[in-house]
Every structure is written in structure tokens, then in C-alpha cells.
């Protein structure tokens, strides 16, 4: 864009839209559009500034409507084929109006400017002028790209870079939602890149469809580079399916093998639904673990002799059908090729080693995209990592030792882990609720947020959502957000690609963004460039102290 184009965009951005005519803090503000402004140029999700007498307000257009001063105009419409009559009536007898949700205020005095944007607590006075927010306004509210802020996209119809403060972002668990094919994966990739560049956190990604490690595909079938290709020195790819990784020519760092003896009854709780286990069957696992010790799975599956089974069942008072149900379930697990009777290496230890070195770990599932495998592995590893983190954090608090590096665990198909039936029992529910204190948070990715426990949803700090059109999903994502109804209309009208609504902890107010480009050579360069800048700054600082 050349300078003159930029100027014209800026002028257009400062455009006066109209004046405030009514409204309330609760229900939002009504703006009557000036005659020369066409309703067709307006769009929900756009930002406006309102020049109140004492302070400036920052809000978002949530509805656009048409009005007439005289009902006769609707009953016997005038002859608008005459451009003169049409022009006279526009903005006078017939007018457009906007509904604006105010979110922030910026004080007019020096103290207000220093304090920055504050949540809105009142409404602007009558006839305050409403302008389309300019690039500078948006920048003032969302901040510029810097060492903490990562550029994720641009607002609709604007060139300003919207940045997320990533150290703030990773302090809480976050969620990315959206229908299938709306760009969740691309958005997640962008955020992961941001996190590995600008936050002090490391990521552990349970990569169900092997999209985040080496390469992924876009909907058009084009291959796009993923984390390891872009940042080879910062990312390690672990795989459960070595063969698949090799076929895809992915340079893996470690092949994960899990021993039966590492699986504990607690790991089975989550699998109840996918393995069709009954409640008593999951209970029985504890008894079997007590009887058989560490090799309980292997021995339960191997137990075929009727006499022995009978003895066991009498001793443990497990019902026969329960035992059969459990045996069937365990046999399903037993068929997973990455499970071995005894693992030569400890994957948890390995993952922690990498994470401690500041490397981000992507665990590819290869061909094992079956949900059973995903739940089993994610749950099993996370439970152990969680235990380690808690121990270390408690130790750090007690002995004033170094705290573990903040960890962000990315899980897909989150409703399988966090549905209301299991959320209270699983490790992911615990992390979402309280692990922030232990430097560990979740990044949940899901297409059916209504399936996630409402308690967990309410604990998510920042929610990023692409298009959702199911009423229940929209409701669950927006639960507890102020101005929910207004956001609902914004959310339901997102484009099906490359657009997302961000709201919550890491942004001062909800914002609709067009996500930044990902997948072209230029975009890779930009991502890499940002990393270089940060590296260089760090180097410069180091040199300064030498």
C-alpha cells in the first residue's frame, strides 16, 4: 500500500457516522446515522469511537437497522425511482441506525490517557458524535506489536495489526472453537508460533491429525509448513506411529512407546465411554490392579482359563459380566500398536526433559487417529506431567527454587475430555480449573463447545471462536460474557473462513479479526522474521551486560 492509499484509508477510518440518540449501558447505545452514510457500508463487528463530553468511548457495532419517521412511509412508499426524492428522504424521513455496545472508555484528561482504556461504566451523553474508529484508535486499545504482543490478525476492513499479549494469554487456560473447516487449525498454528516466540511458556501438543509438527494441508489440498519446519531448533516431534512419520518424511525426535504396566486404573476412567465400559467395570480395574500389581492389564487380558477366572471373581467379588465387559475393553486397548508389554524408555521423562530445555513437543498420532488412542495417551501423559509439575511447583514455593517453565498443553476434540460426565474426574478438568497456580494451562480446541462442561468453559481465560452456527454451541461459548446477545449476532455472522471473534482475558474488549496469513512463503518469512528480532534483542541485551 502506498502512502496516498494509506492516507485515504485513514481519512475514511475517521469518518463521522452519526450521533447518539438513545441507549443504556445494559442494552447498548442507539446511533442515528448521518444522511450521507449508507447503512450498506456498515458492518457488525466494526469499531466506533464515541466522543463523549468528558471521555471517549470505544465500542463495537452489534446491529444495523432501518427506521422511518412516519409510518405512512412504510405503508405507501414514495417513488424512490426518482433519485431526487430518494436523496431527500435518505437520512431524514428514512434513516439508518446502529446499535453499538460500548466496551471501553479512555479518559479525556492526562491521567485518563496514562491509565489507558478502562471498562465502561456509563454511557456517553445525548448527541455525542460517533466516528468510525481509526487505525490509531484501535492501536491505542489493542497495543502495538512488541516483545510480548503477537500479531494475530487485522480487524475487519482495517490494516491495523491486532496483537495478543501472549504472556498474559498463557496465564490462563484458553479455548479455540469453531465449526469444522473454519480455520481452527490454522489459527492454532499461528497462536502456537506466537507462544513459542513471545511467551515464556513451552507447549505440549497432542496432535491428533499430525498437523502441527511437520506439515499440514490447507482445505485446497496445499501443503503448509508447520512448527518444526519453521522453527527446527525450538520444536521436537514425538511420534506414536513411526512408520507413518517416516512415510511423511518427518524428522522425529522420539518414538513413544507405552508399556501396559504404565497404565493405571485412573487412566481408564476417561475411556469408559469410548470403550463402552460399565460403571462396575471401571471400578473393577482398581481391584484388579491390587490383585495383579503393575501388570494388571496384561494379566487380565491373558486370563482365559474358566477356573482361574472363577477363582479371581470370587476373591474380588466382581460380577462375571462386568469382568467380560472389562476384558473386551482392555483387549481393544491391547490392540493399539504403540502399546507394548514393557516400554524400554519412559516417555513422560523424555517429554519433560525436552520441555525443561525450552523445547516445544508435538506428539503425532500418525494413523492412530482413533479417539480411544488419543484419550488414553493424552490423559496418561498429562496425568504424569501434571504430577511432576505440581511437585516441582510446590517444591519451588517451599524452597524458593526455580519454578518449572510455564506449560501449555494443547488438546483437540476437547469435549471428549471435558464433558460434564468426566470433567470432574479427569486431569484436564483439574488443569482447566486450578493448574494455573502450578504454571500449567490448557489450550483446548473443539468444534462442539456445548459438549464441554460449563464449569470448565467458565474458567477459560481467552476464547477465540470461528464461525459457530449451532445455537447451543454459541450459547455455551458466550456463557457469562457481558453483552452476550450482541456478540451472538456478531458470532453468527462471521465468515466461514479466516475470521474469528476473540474475547476474554487477553484482550481489552471482544474483537473480530481476519486472521493473519499463513501458508505463503511471505508469511513464513514474517513469522521467522519476528523470531529473529526477538533473538536479536535478547542478544543485544546480553551483550550490553557483558
Amino acid at each position, binding site marked *: 500500500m502506498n502512502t496516498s492509499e494509506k492516507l485515504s484509508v485513514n481519512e475514511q477510518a475517521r469518518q463521522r457516522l452519526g450521533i447518539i440518540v438513545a441507549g443504556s449501558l445494559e442494552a447498548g447505545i442507539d446511533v442515528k446515522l448521518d444522511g450521507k452514510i449508507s447503512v450498506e457500508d456498515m458492518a457488525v463487528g466494526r469499531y466506533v469511537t464515541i466522543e463523549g463530553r468528558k471521555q471517549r468511548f470505544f465500542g463495537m457495532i452489534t446491529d444495523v437497522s432501518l427506521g422511518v419517521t412516519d409510518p405512512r*412511509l412504510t405503508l405507501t412508499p414514495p417513488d424512490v425511482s426518482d433519485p431526487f426524492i430518494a436523496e431527500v428522504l435518505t437520512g431524514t424521513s428514512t434513516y439508518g441506525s446502529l446499535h453499538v455496545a460500548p466496551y471501553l472508555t479512555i479518559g479525556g484528561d492526562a491521567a485518563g490517557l496514562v491509565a489507558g482504556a478502562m471498562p465502561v461504566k456509563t454511557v456517553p451523553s445525548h448527541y455525542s458524535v460517533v466516528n468510525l474508529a481509526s487505525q490509531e484508535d484501535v492501536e491505542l486499545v489493542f497495543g502495538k506489536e512488541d516483545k510480548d504482543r503477537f500479531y494475530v490478525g487485522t480487524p475487519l476492513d482495517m490494516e491495523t495489526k491486532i496483537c495478543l499479549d501472549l504472556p498474559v494469554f498463557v496465564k490462563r487456560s484458553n479455548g479455540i472453537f469453531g465449526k469444522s473447516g473454519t480455520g481452527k487449525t490454522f489459527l492454532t498454528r499461528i497462536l502456537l508460533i506466537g507462544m513459542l516466540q513471545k511467551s515464556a511458556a513451552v507447549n505440549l501438543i497432542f496432535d491428533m491429525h499430525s498437523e502441527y509438527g511437520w506439515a499440514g494441508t490447507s482445505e485446497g489440498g496445499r501443503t503448509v509448513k508447520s512448527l518444526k519446519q519453521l522453527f527446527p531448533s525450538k520444536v521436537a516431534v514425538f511420534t506414536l506411529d513411526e512408520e507413518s512419520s517416516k512415510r511423511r518424511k518427518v524428522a522425529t525426535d522420539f518414538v513413544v512407546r507405552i508399556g501396559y504396566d504404565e497404565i493405571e486404573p485412573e487412566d481408564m476412567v476417561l475411556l469408559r465411554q469410548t470403550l463402552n465400559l460399565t460403571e462396575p467395570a471401571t471400578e473393577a480395574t482398581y481391584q484388579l490392579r491390587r490383585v495383579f500389581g503393575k501388570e494388571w492389564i496384561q494379566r487380565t487380558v491373558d486370563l482365559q482359563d474358566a477356573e482361574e477366572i472363577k477363582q479371581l471373581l470370587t476373591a474380588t467379588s466382581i460380577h462375571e459380566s462386568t469382568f467380560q465387559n472389562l476384558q473386551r475393553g482392555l483387549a481393544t486397548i491391547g490392540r493399539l500398536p504403540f502399546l507394548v508389554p514393557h516400554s524400554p524408555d519412559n516417555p513422560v521423562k523424555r517429554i519433560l526433559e525436552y520441555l525443561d530445555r525450552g523445547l516445544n513437543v508435538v506428539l503425532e498420532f500418525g494413523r492412530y487417529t482413533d479417539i480411544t488412542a488419543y484419550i488414553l495417551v493424552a490423559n496418561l501423559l498429562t496425568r504424569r506431567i501434571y504430577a511432576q509439575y505440581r511437585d516441582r511447583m510446590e517444591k519451588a514455593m517451599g524452597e524458593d527454587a526455580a519454578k518449572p517453565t510455564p506449560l501449555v498443553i494443547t488438546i483437540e476434540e476437547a469435549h471428549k475430555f471435558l464433558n460434564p460426565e468426566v470433567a470432574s474426574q479427569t486431569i484436564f478438568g483439574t488443569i482447566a480449573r486450578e493448574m494455573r497456580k502450578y504454571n500449567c494451562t490448557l489450550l483446548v480446541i473443539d468444534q462442539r463447545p456445548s459438549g464441554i462442561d460449563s464449569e470448565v468453559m467458565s474458567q477459560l481465560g481467552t476464547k477465540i471462536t470461528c464461525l459457530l452456527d449451532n445455537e447451543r454451541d454459541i450459547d455455551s461459548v458466550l456463557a457469562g460474557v457481558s453483552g452476550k446477545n450482541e456478540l451472538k449476532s456478531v458470532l453468527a455472522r462471521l465468515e466461514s473462513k479466516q475470521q474469528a471473534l476473540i474475547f476474554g482475558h487477553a484482550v481489552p474488549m471482544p474483537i473480530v479479526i481476519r486472521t493473519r496469513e499463513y501458508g505463503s512463503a511471505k508469511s513464513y518469512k514474517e513469522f521467522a522474521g519476528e523470531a529473529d528480532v526477538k533473538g536479536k534483542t535478547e542478544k543485544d541485551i546480553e551483550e550490553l551486560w557483558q
Partner: protein
Amino acid sequence: MDRIGEVIEASTTSFTAQCYELYQSPALGSLVKTKEGAVELYGIVNNASTTSLEPGRKPIARGKDEATEEDIYKANPQLNKLLRSEFSALVVGHREGDNLYHYLPPSPARIHAFVYACAPEEVKEFSRSLNFLNILVSSQLPVPVEELVSATLRQMAPAQPDPRAFLVAAGKELAVLLTDFNQLKAILGRLK
């Protein structure tokens, strides 16, 4: 300045003037002015009439043997003295010194004050503000308001640098002033 007549009747809201020449009254809706001391009064012509000089003496038909209407006047030169043309103007504003006000002056015009037609420059200056429309639409006149307003705007438009923009602006002002949409529609229809 084009002197066209003399005030023969005056009130706060309007004045009536007799034309110096028969049938030479200014067009309906045109801007005229007269003076009251240092104050210049602006009026908009809302009605014109030609009647017999004496109320009791009605004109009679005279053209039976004449070929054209003109011939009647040629044959009866006294007619120009026995008939008179009058027009009345609604006061819509005044000027005191350099300041132009679009509301009623403190006192009405004086009898025998001269009345002038306003030049396009003056019309342009006066119509910079459309506040006078309020007086027009709220007046009680023998001429329908729609007719007067549209005639006024039609008269003023050619003096503007952009006649169409002027009419649109006036239309918008009227859309706000008029509560009756049909009235607005009638005016807009007469502006074409």
C-alpha cells in the same frame, strides 16, 4: 436595484405592495425587500392580484370587436390607469447592518416604502440558511403551503452554485419540519 413597487399595506408578518406597472408583479415565491429605517425586510411573494382601482367599479368585457387582447389595451389606454396590480409578501427575515436574520423584524414595513426585487447574488446570500422555510410552512395563506414552498425553492435554485444540492438540502430540511409526509411528497413533486 430593481424597484418594482410601493408598500400599501403592512403588518408584522407580511406587506402588500402595488406595482408601478400593471401586471409587473414579481413571480410567486420570489424574494423581495423593503426598508424600515435602517432595517431591510425580506419577503417572499405569496400572492398577486390585479383589480379595479375602485372597488365598486368592476371591469367590463371590451374585446368583442378587437382582433387581439393587445388591441383592447391599445384602444382603451385608460385601462392602465383604472386597473392596478398588487402583490403580497410574507416577511421571512431582515438585515441589520451586515447581519442577516432569518426571523421576523422588530417592526413592520412603512406605507409607501419602496419594494425591490432581489438580485441573484442577494438571493444566494439569503438562502445560505434555510431557516426561513419554517416561517413558510407554518404560515396561514390564501395560497397552499406546498405551492408557495415549492415556488420559492424553484425561484431560489437558479441563483445557487449547485441548484440540485440546494434543492436536496431544502428537501431534507422540509422532511424534518413537516410532520405530514403527504405534504412533503407534494412539495418534492413540485420541485422537478
